[in-house]
């Protein structure tokens, strides 16, 4: 037991240390890599706290996709490559006095929060008893999925709305940018993509299916499928074209639309919105999850790709 506690201490210290190192890295590329490693260790910590769903989501989305997004942006800032030193100059922060005061304030606030945390009661029950009581009526057997898609489904719908809002804003901001030439990745990568992508699709489907009874579910599956699409974009298996726009828009909104329609559709006859009939709860949840997974995958890939595919017509928009 004490060995494990020592491991936990070491892991927690590494997490905090990596967070500090991330902020202190002088080179932006190193900073991003440190952030990704931070995410991996964080996921390990969450696995230690028996939160496998969260660990999966963190690895796939928090570290993986965020990392890919950050690296893609850095490549853009540095004019196509990651190794070039131009572009995003990494200047040391200026104005030491303000910085010192800010750091001091943040440090003091954190210490106060730490004291408050230690003073918090340890014996107040959470909602686990309520969840356990309601599980038989939820339609699934995995508690986290039950919370996400039944008890607090409204939050989850709004979370998908946030993703939708993000892709709308990204398309709006980044229209008509000239496409940065994708790096040629060579035959080894192409071969890998040919093997790995189908397997990853299967893995995504498996994660979605297993989510009803074990760790996994729409978000993790969507992230895996989104990663598939990102790899496809990189290997040029997927080439967004203006003709794909209606399809892409439809895919982005499908999850939100179906989710909201089901929520409204089940209401009536004494039932509230989001109150699935117990007999159909599992089917409905799987339907919602499947649509949400597809939407998440498409949205995440679109967020990585960035700009909306448009025909460069006006000529006013250059680079």
């Amino acid at each position, binding site marked *: 037991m004490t060995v494990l*506690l020592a491991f*936990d201490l070491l892991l*927690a210290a590494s*997490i*905090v240390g990596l967070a500090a190192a991330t*902020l202190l890295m002088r080179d932006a590329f190193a900073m*991003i890599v440190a*952030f990704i490693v*931070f995410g991996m260790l*964080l996921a390990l*910590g969450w696995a*230690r*706290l*028996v*939160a496998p769903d*969260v660990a999966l*989501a963190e690895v796939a*989305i*928090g570290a993986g*996709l965020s990392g890919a*997004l*950050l690296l893609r*942006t*850095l490549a*853009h*800032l540095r004019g196509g490559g990651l190794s070039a030193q131009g572009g*995003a100059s990494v*200047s040391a*922060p200026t104005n030491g006095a303000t*910085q010192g005061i*800010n750091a001091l*304030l*943040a*440090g003091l*606030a*954190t210490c106060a*929060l730490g004291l408050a945390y*230690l003073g*918090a*009661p340890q*014996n*107040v029950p*959470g909602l*686990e008893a309520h*969840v356990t009581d309601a599980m038989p009526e939820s339609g699934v057997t995995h*508690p*986290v999925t039950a*919370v*996400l898609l039944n008890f607090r489904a409204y939050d*989850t719908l709004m*979370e998908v709305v*946030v*993703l939708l809002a*993000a892709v709308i804003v*990204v398309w709006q*901001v*980044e229209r008509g*940018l000239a496409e940065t030439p994708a790096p040629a990745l060579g035959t080894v990568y192409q071969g890998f993509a040919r093997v790995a992508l189908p397997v990853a699709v299967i893995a995504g489907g498996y994660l979605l299916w297993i989510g009803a009874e074990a760790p996994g579910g729409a*978000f993790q599956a969507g992230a895996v499928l989104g990663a598939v699409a990102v790899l496809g974009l990189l290997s040029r298996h997927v080439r967004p074209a203006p003709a794909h726009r209606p399809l892409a828009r439809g895919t982005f909104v499908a999850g939100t639309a179906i989710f909201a329609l089901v929520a409204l559709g089940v209401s009536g006859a004494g039932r509230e919105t989001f109150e699935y009939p117990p007999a159909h709860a599992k089917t409905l949840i799987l339907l919602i999850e499947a649509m949400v997974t597809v939407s998440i995958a498409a949205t995440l890939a679109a967020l990585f790709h960035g700009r909306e595919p448009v025909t460069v017509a006006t000529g006013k928009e250059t*680079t």
Partner: protein
Amino acid sequence: MIALSQATIYGLAGLAVFGLGLMGVLGAAERLRRLIALNLCAAGAGMVLIAAAWRSPPAVPDPVPHALVITGIVVMVSATAVALALIRRLHSLETDTDD
């Protein structure tokens, strides 16, 4: 005397990560670094929530904070993507006007 439980370790570490992120947001000069600092804040808040799933000594952790943190992770990647799009667009416009 406070028992140094597993949850407490990660909860305090989460607060430390949040604090570091806060310092980064307040102090960092570059746009990317600030964004990463904000992501650290989110991670720290998530750690506190996941630690909160273990307060009372049950056999299994409370699934509600788990669901909340998954939501938080997805929300954060959305916000990150939007901020990055703004950064890329700004960079393009700024380098255009500077040259």
